[in-house]
C-alpha cells in the first residue's frame, strides 16, 4: 500500500470516527431531552397558587441569605438590589459584595439605600481578600454591603458566606433579575428533605428583548438581536433538556452562578468556592458530589425549572466569545481537578456516565466537531472524501443539531410556555434553524480556543459589557 493510499484511508477513518462521534452526541442529547421532558412533568412544582401564598407567609421557612457579587455594576445595581429585596420570601437578607469596583457601584448603593458602616461581625471561616468595610442600611431593610479588595467572584462569594448567618445561601449575579417567587420555588426541595438536599439550581432565561420595570420582567418577548435569540435557543436546550435529566439521575454538575440555592454548612464543609478556577459554580457542585459520595452520605443536588432568573446575554460577538471561552475553561478546570471520579464505580452514575459525558462531549466535543468541519472541507476540496460522506457529516452535525434546537423550542411550548406571543415562538423557531448555520460553528471555534486556554492554565474573566435593562414603555 502506497503512502498516498495509507493517508487516504487514515483520513477517511478519521472522518468516519468524527461522524460517529458527532452523531452520538446529538443522539445522546435527544435521549437526554426525552428523559428531561418526562422528568419535567413530574418535578414541576405541584402546589396550588393558594398554597404558594400560604408558604410565602410561613414562619417555618428557613432564612436565606442572598449573595450577589458586584464588580462595576453601576448600570444595573439599583434595579437588581431592589428586586432582590422585594423577593416574596418571609425571611431573607441581601448581601451585596462589592469586589473592588472601579466605577461608582458602591457610592450608588450608599446613596440609594442610605448605608452606614456597621459593626456586623463575621468569622473568617474561609480565607478571602481583605474586607474594607461592612455597610448596613439605616432603613428597615435587610441589606448588607461588603466592600472588599478585588479578588474575583469566588472570593466575593466566600466573603459573603463568611458574613451570612442563614442556613441557606442563594448565590445570584448582581446583574440578574429574579422572579418574585424564585426563592420560594427553590426552597421547596429543602422543605421536602432538608438533610439530604445540598443545593438547588433554577432556570436562567434571557432578558434581552423583555420589558423590565422596578426590577421585574413585566413582558416576556424574544430578543430583537439574532445573536441573543440564538442564545435563547441554547439556554432552553441546556436547561429544559440537559439539566432536568441530569438532576433526575442525581448527577447535576452545574448550578449556574446566576442563581443557585445552597446549604451554608455544605459549602463551608466543602471549603467554599475555589479561587483558582473561572468556573467556580461548576467546580463547587462537582466538589459537593465528590465529597458526599466519598463519605458515603445520602444527598441530592436538584434542578427545579420553576424558579426563574433573567439575565442579560451578550449581543456582541467579542463579548460572547470571551464568555464562552471562560465557560469552556471552567469546564476544563473542573473536569481536570476532579478527574479522579472518572469511570469509578463508587461515584455511581456520576462517575460512570455524567462525568465521562462532560469530558467526552462537553469538553472535547466542540473541538472534535470543529475538526470535522475542517476535515470535511479539506477532504472535499482535495477529493479525499466522497460527497456522500460530506453530506453525512452535514446531516449528523448540522441537521441533527437543527432538529434538536427546534425540539427544545417545542418542548418549552409544551411545558413551561413563557413566550406568550406566537410571533415570538416563530422567531425562536427561525433562530433554532439559523443557529446551526454559522453560530454553532463559531461556538465550536470559541470553545476549542477555551479548551486550549484551559489546558494551558489561562485565568481571568475578560471584560463583560452591560447595557442595562430596558424599562417598560421606554
Amino acid at each position: 500500500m502506497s503512502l498516498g493510499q495509507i493517508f487516504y484511508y487514515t483520513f477517511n477513518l478519521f472522518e468516519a470516527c468524527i461522524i460517529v462521534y458527532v452523531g452520538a452526541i446529538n443522539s445522546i442529547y435527544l435521549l437526554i431531552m426525552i428523559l428531561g421532558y418526562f422528568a419535567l412533568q413530574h418535578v414541576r412544582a405541584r402546589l396550588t397558587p393558594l398554597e404558594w401564598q400560604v408558604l410565602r407567609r410561613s414562619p417555618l421557612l428557613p432564612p436565606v441569605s442572598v449573595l450577589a457579587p458586584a464588580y462595576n455594576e453601576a448600570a444595573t445595581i439599583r434595579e437588581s438590589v431592589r428586586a432582590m429585596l422585594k423577593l416574596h420570601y418571609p425571611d431573607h437578607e441581601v448581601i451585596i459584595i462589592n469586589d473592588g469596583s472601579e466605577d461608582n457601584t458602591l457610592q450608588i448603593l450608599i446613596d440609594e439605600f442610605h448605608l452606614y458602616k456597621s459593626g456586623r461581625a463575621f468569622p473568617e471561616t474561609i480565607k478571602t481578600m481583605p474586607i474594607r468595610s461592612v455597610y448596613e442600611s439605616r432603613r428597615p431593610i435587610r441589606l448588607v454591603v461588603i466592600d472588599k479588595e478585588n479578588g474575583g467572584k469566588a472570593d466575593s462569594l466566600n466573603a459573603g458566606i463568611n458574613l451570612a448567618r442563614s442556613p441557606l445561601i442563594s448565590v445570584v449575579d448582581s446583574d440578574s433579575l429574579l422572579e418574585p417567587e424564585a426563592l420560594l420555588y427553590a426552597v421547596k426541595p429543602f422543605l421536602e428533605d432538608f438533610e439530604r438536599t445540598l443545593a438547588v439550581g433554577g432556570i436562567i432565561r434571557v432578558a434581552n428583548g423583555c420589558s423590565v420595570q422596578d426590577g421585574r420582567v413585566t413582558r416576556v418577548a424574544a430578543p430583537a438581536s439574532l445573536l441573543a435569540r440564538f442564545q435563547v435557543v441554547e439556554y432552553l436546550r441546556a436547561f429544559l433538556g440537559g439539566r432536568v435529566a441530569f438532576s433526575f439521575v442525581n448527577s447535576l454538575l452545574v448550578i449556574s452562578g446566576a442563581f443557585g440555592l445552597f446549604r451554608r454548612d455544605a459549602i463551608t464543609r466543602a471549603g467554599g468556592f475555589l479561587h483558582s478556577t473561572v468556573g467556580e459554580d461548576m467546580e463547587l457542585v462537582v466538589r459537593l458530589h465528590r465529597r458526599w459520595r466519598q463519605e458515603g452520605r445520602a444527598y441530592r443536588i436538584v434542578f427545579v425549572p420553576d424558579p426563574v432568573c433573567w439575565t442579560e446575554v451578550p449581543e456582541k460577538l467579542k463579548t460572547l466569545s470571551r464568555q464562552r471561552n471562560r465557560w469552556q475553561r471552567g469546564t476544563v478546570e473542573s473536569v481536570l481537578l476532579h478527574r479522579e471520579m472518572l469511570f469509578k464505580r463508587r461515584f455511581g452514575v456520576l462517575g460512570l456516565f455524567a462525568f465521562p459525558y462532560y469530558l467526552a462531549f462537553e469538553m472535547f466535543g466542540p473541538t472534535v466537531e470543529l475538526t470535522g468541519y475542517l476535515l470535511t472541507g479539506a477532504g472535499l476540496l482535495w477529493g479525499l472524501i466522497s460527497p456522500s460522506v460530506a453530506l453525512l457529516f452535514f446531516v449528523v452535525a448540522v441537521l441533527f443539531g437543527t432538529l434538536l434546537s427546534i425540539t427544545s423550542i417545542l418542548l418549552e411550548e409544551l411545558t413551561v410556555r413563557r413566550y406568550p406571543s406566537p410571533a415570538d415562538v416563530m422567531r425562536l423557531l427561525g433562530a433554532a434553524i439559523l443557529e446551526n448555520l454559522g453560530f454553532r460553528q463559531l461556538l465550536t471555534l470559541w470553545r476549542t480556543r477555551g479548551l486550549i486556554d484551559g489546558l494551558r492554565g489561562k485565568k481571568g474573566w475578560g471584560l463583560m459589557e452591560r447595557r442595562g435593562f430596558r424599562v417598560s414603555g421606554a
Partner: protein
Amino acid sequence: MIPRTGRIRSIIWTKTLIVAAAFGLSVWWVDVLILARLEGSRPLLLALAFSLVQVLAIFLMLVKILSSKLVHQLRQRRAQRVGPTIRARLAAHALGSDDLAELKKLHGSFPDEVERCFVDFLGSVAGTALRRFSELAVALGLAARWEMRYGSRQPQKRREAITCLGQLSWEVARKTVLAALQDQDQDVRMEALRALVQCGESETIEKAFAMALTQPLLARALLVESLGPHALTLSRGAIPEALNSPDCETVLAALEILQGWRKALVLPGFPRLFRHARPEVRARALRLLPYLAGVSDAASHILAALQDGDSRVRSGAAIAAGRLKLKAALPLLSHALHEPDADTSKAAAYALAAMGPSGLEILETAIRSPRQPAASAAVEALERARTDRLEYANL
C-alpha cells in the same frame, strides 16, 4: 411497596425507554422499508431516516401544541359566554335562593364550566353558604364525580379531587378524605391534612396535627398557619402528647410548630424538655420558653442551661435570657460572651444588649478585649442596641 420516589422514577424511565424504543423502531422502519429502495451509502440513508423520524416527531409536537391552544381558546370562549350566568346562579344559591333546577340544567349542558365556577366559589364560602354548596355538590353529582376522580391512578387527579372534596362539609367528604390520609402520594396526603384542618372538628384537627409531625417540613410549613387558631385546643391534648413522645423527631417537629405560632400557651410538663437527652431538643425548647405562659421557675432553667455542656443549648439559653431580660443571668452571659463558639458569643452579646445599662457596661468592657469572637460580637451588639436594631440579630 416501592417508595413514592422510586415509583415515579420507574414511570419516568419506562416512558423514556418506550419513546426511545419507538423512535428507534421508526428509524429502522423508515430506513428498511422506505429509504432502502434509494441508492446511496447506508450510513447516510440511516442518518436521513433518523432525521425524518425526528421531523415527524416535531410535526406531532406542533399538532399537539396547536390543538391544545385551540382547545384552550374554545374553552375560554365558552367560559366567557356561560361563565357569568353560572356564577350569578351560584351566588344567588349561596345567598339562599333555590336555583337548583336552573343549575342542573346548566350542569347538563356545560358540566366542566359549572364545575370550574363551583370550585372557584367553594374557596370563598363558609357557614350556611358552605352547607348549601355541599348539598348542591351532591345534588349536581359533583361530589360523586370527585370521589370517582380520587380513584384515578394519576396522583395529580387524586389531589385535585381531594382539594375539591376537602372544601365541602365534613359529612360529605369525610370518608374519602380519611382514605386519602393513607395515599401513596405525599401531595395527596398533604391535601387531605389540609382538608382535616379546614373541617374544624377537634378530633380531626388533632389527627391532622399528629400526622403533620411525621411529614416533611413542607407539610408543617403549609399547615402551621391554619393550625394556629386551634392552638388552644391542641395544647390540651395533642401537643403535650407530642412533646412526651419517645421519638425525638416528633418532639422537634412539635417544637417547630410552636415556634412558628409563638403563642402564649400553657403547656404543663414543658420544663421536662430542658432535661431532654438530646441537646437540639433542649436548645429549641429554650428558644421557645420566652413565648410560653405559666412556665414555673423559668429563670432557674435558663441559668442551668447557660452552664450546659452543649454550645447550642447555651446559645438557646442566652437568647431566652435576653428576651426575658433576666438580670440574674448577667454573670453567666458575660462568661458565655467570651466563649470560643461564635454563635454562643453572639447570642450572649445580644442578650446583654437587651438588658439595659448593666448589660451594655459588660459589652463596653468586652470590646477592648483581645479575645475573639467576644470583641466583635460585643461591637455588633452595642451598635445594634444604640441604633435600635436589635431585631436584626439573625440569631
